[in-house]
């Protein structure tokens, strides 16, 4: 229970950072989405439940403050997590730096296109900049998680 509360608190913290901190470190106006990056990296590392929690709950929190219709972020994030899960199971059995970069880049691009369409904005080259920025952040997060994950968490199925 304490673990779940901590997770929810952490998700709220990431969503808050998305609104107040990420615009400060934007590059040429490109602001990567931390919730999306986090959930994609988690799903590629096989933390399925955590990835869906982050995508769903984080998406709903983002929806509370976003100009897009309520539910848009949560829906797209869950969809992208499913897509990433399918791709990683079917075509990318090994999770490494390249797969992380590709999936995060593509995920950000799809989310950006969907957002610009729903907001009736112009599709610009900034989407690519944002994709690359998000991929770099994804790689940093992947490195941090790799350092934090205990080997026992990965091989549990063979141990019991």
């Amino acid at each position: 229970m304490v673990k779940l509360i901590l997770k929810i608190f952490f998700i709220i913290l990431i969503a808050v950072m998305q609104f107040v901190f990420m615009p400060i470190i934007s590059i040429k106006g490109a602001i990567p989405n931390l919730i999306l990056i986090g959930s994609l990296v988690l799903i590629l590392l096989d933390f399925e439940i955590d990835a869906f929690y982050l995508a769903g709950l984080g998406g709903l929190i983002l929806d509370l403050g976003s100009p897009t219709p309520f539910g848009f972020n949560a829906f797209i994030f869950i969809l992208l997590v499913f897509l990433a899960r399918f791709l990683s199971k079917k075509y990318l059995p090994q999770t490494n730096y390249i797969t992380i970069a590709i999936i995060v880049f593509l995920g950000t691009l799809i989310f950006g296109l969907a957002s610009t369409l729903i907001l009736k904005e112009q599709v610009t080259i900034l989407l690519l900049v944002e994709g690359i920025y998000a991929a770099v952040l994804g790689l940093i997060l992947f490195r941090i998680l790799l350092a934090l994950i205990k080997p026992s968490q990965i091989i549990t199925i063979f141990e019991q």
Partner: protein
Amino acid sequence: MPKPGSETLTKIKIFEENVKVLLPGKTRRKMRRWRFVIVILVLALLGFFLYPTGFTKPIKNYFWRGLEPIGLGFRLSFGKIVPFFKDIVHLKGIVKQNKNLINENLSLQGQLANLSEVDYENEILKKELGFLKTQNASTIIPAAIIGQSSGYLRSLVIDKGQADGLLQGDAVISQGYLVGTLTDVRKNNSELTLITDFNSLVPVVLQDSRGTGLLRGGLNGLAVEDIPLNIGIRKGENVITSGLGGQIPPGILIGTVTDVISKEGEIFQKVSVSSPIDFSRLEVLFIIKKNG
């Protein structure tokens, strides 16, 4: 003597047993995941259909009100540190820009002295002709930036709203230049759409040639569209708000004309506009509230 391959068989049996033990837990986890996903999707779908009723407006207001102290804290701490490091990277350009600004400042001081004299003469002449004292027709309200609601909109969230008397469409300025208009005014905070946004349209006039048009943001920066063909546009002339329609008062400076970008055969002229404002580094903003 054990049969050949029996060791492998034993290992497989142990593995199968382990998998059986693990399965209920795994299934439970799967069920939990699906239940959670379904709940979120139902909420999202419900919210999506109820969105046109405007039920999210008060929620958004309280959400951003809660974020206000955190947002202001980040702006006042990291908001100052990050540009400092960006400036170090562009140090050479900044030195050059500073030199140009000093020269421009000296020239403007000279112009200001002349204008003060003209202003004084103007006041005297008005008195002689019996004009009534010009009234300030607008109120200026300062506002701070809390955060940004979406990376795909050139918009910002500010800490003033209906409670401060703001209305949708009010003009927002920074350092005397127009930076945007209020597009979503909530009780305690508002959404400001910058003039660099593709969907922002502001009626403007070119100060010297008096050509009117619509200012729009976009991929290639600011541009004024729909200027009549018979207008002789001069490069470097000021672009100011025309005050036609909406809440934006006339005479607010936006920038200067840099180039005529319309092609031959087009029925209207189009010019690109340069604003001296760095829209990624806005700090204190002022909202111009039109009185009456």
